[in-house]
């Protein structure tokens, strides 16, 4: 098995994929974000418990490859408890990291984010990594 594949499917990603964080349907939540990639069929819903500019709780459910599932799990974990501004900042941070357009002084990454660095060698997988993050960013910005 080649080393860049090992890097792509890092231990953190494998762990998130096998035991995703808050992986549970919460259809009663007032805010449901749909993250869907029509090209490959990956499809997640993120359920947001959102209260006066703070994200209280997040859950998610759905179907997708290891990268997209793990990245959604990381999102849920990273954004819970954050204020709107913080959460948007984290989205920008993650998306910028994956798309390699972060200025170096902005790279203050969480360990979980860095686990996706393997995607840099597989540009065709960056859509998988950013799927839920992009939709979440759009949602948060609409609430600013």
């Amino acid at each position: 098995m080649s080393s860049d594949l090992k890097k792509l499917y890092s231990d953190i990603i494998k762990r998130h994929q096998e035991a995703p964080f808050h992986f549970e349907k919460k259809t009663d939540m007032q805010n449901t974000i749909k993250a869907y990639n029509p090209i490959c069929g990956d499809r997640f819903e993120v359920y947001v418990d959102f209260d006066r500019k703070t994200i209280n709780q997040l859950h998610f459910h759905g179907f997708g490859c290891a990268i997209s599932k793990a990245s959604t799990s990381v999102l849920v974990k990273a954004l819970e408890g954050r204020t709107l501004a913080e959460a948007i900042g984290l989205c920008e941070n993650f998306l910028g990291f994956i798309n390699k357009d972060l200025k170096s002084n902005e790279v203050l990454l969480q360990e979980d984010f860095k686990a996706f660095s393997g995607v840099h060698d597989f540009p065709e997988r960056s859509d998988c990594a950013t799927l839920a993050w992009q939709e979440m960013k759009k949602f948060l910005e609409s609430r600013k």
Partner: protein
Amino acid sequence: MTFPVHAIKSNFPIFTHRPELVYLDNAATSQKPLSVIQTITDFYTKENANVHRGLYELSSRATKRYEEVRKKVISLIGASNQNTVAFTKGTTESINIVAYSFLKKKLKAGDKVVISAMEHHANLIPWQQVCKESGALLEIIPVNEVGELRLELLDSLLDKRVKLLAITHISNVLGTINPIEEIVFKAHKLKIPVLIDGAQSVGHYPIDVKKLDIDFLAFSAHKMFGPLGTGVLYCKEALAPHVDPHTYGGGSIKNVEFEETEFLDYPHKLEAGTPNIPGVLGLGAAVDYIQQLDIHEAIHHTKNLTISFKDKLKSLGGITLVGQAQNFGSIVSFQVKNIHPHDVSGFLAHANIAVRAGHHCAQPLLESMGVPATVRISFSIYNTMDDVDKTIDAILGVKKFWS
């Protein structure tokens, strides 16, 4: 006699440039033989001119060669009149033409269109939309657990209100080969015209529109060794006057005044605008290429690969085949237990094996089978037993990595 697969493979330049490539995404698009590529290059390099529109030699030669491809196409599909062949952008456009420029004007509220559950989006959405606009009903022939049409239900689905039946010859997901002869026969008893989606079959399997009495046949050059951006709509002579122009513009008209326009006959009325001339000439070269093959040997070859691949795959364990019809082509869809199809295809890609993962533009089929996505492998004439073995090895590797 064994099939000369290595000689054939050497006709396809991509394998000279990428000797390591194991190309198993043939159902998405086939590779192109040198003769097809050369036809396109030669046109642009030596003969480039517009058709129908100039009295100089280049232009009249382009026109003549363009028209001659219709003859090649009819000899491939068993038609007898070259004016039954219209050139389109591809299968998708061909089907849309039938939906909007033939069927729509006949369709009233309460009428029906029948398709099957295994249709590609191209043979589903046009009918769905035209039905919605007309208040007609879209009826679906369901598929059984092994991926065959439940034809025992056909009689109850067909009646006088059905205005068209559209069905794929070969499923691009399940590999199922449908008994189109029987289907056409049943539809015609009720005078229902039938469209066959030949995207996965024409050029690879014999098809005879006269013998089968097919009304419309849609297919794409790029899936049968020809160029991208070119396709065919075959229309039986008796129905051709009922197909209206679909796109309006130059080249398709008899007479134009500011107030009204008189159109040419089929197929010219469908070919408005400057046509994709090298695309059509390339299709001609692809037909030539196919016709010098022994098509039965070719089918035997890809069938061998398919059977061998399926057998070896099943012996790996933890594999679910999606589609196990009795009569199947060279397409295999499957799932690997606990591993998402994209992760499988990503691993294979890393080993230079090109396959496809996803819903293969047949989302409702997969949903009805309770499968969100599959890995799909599709064989063509240039694939070898070595390709099969490399792929099996790589799948074994994926399974090990995730276990």
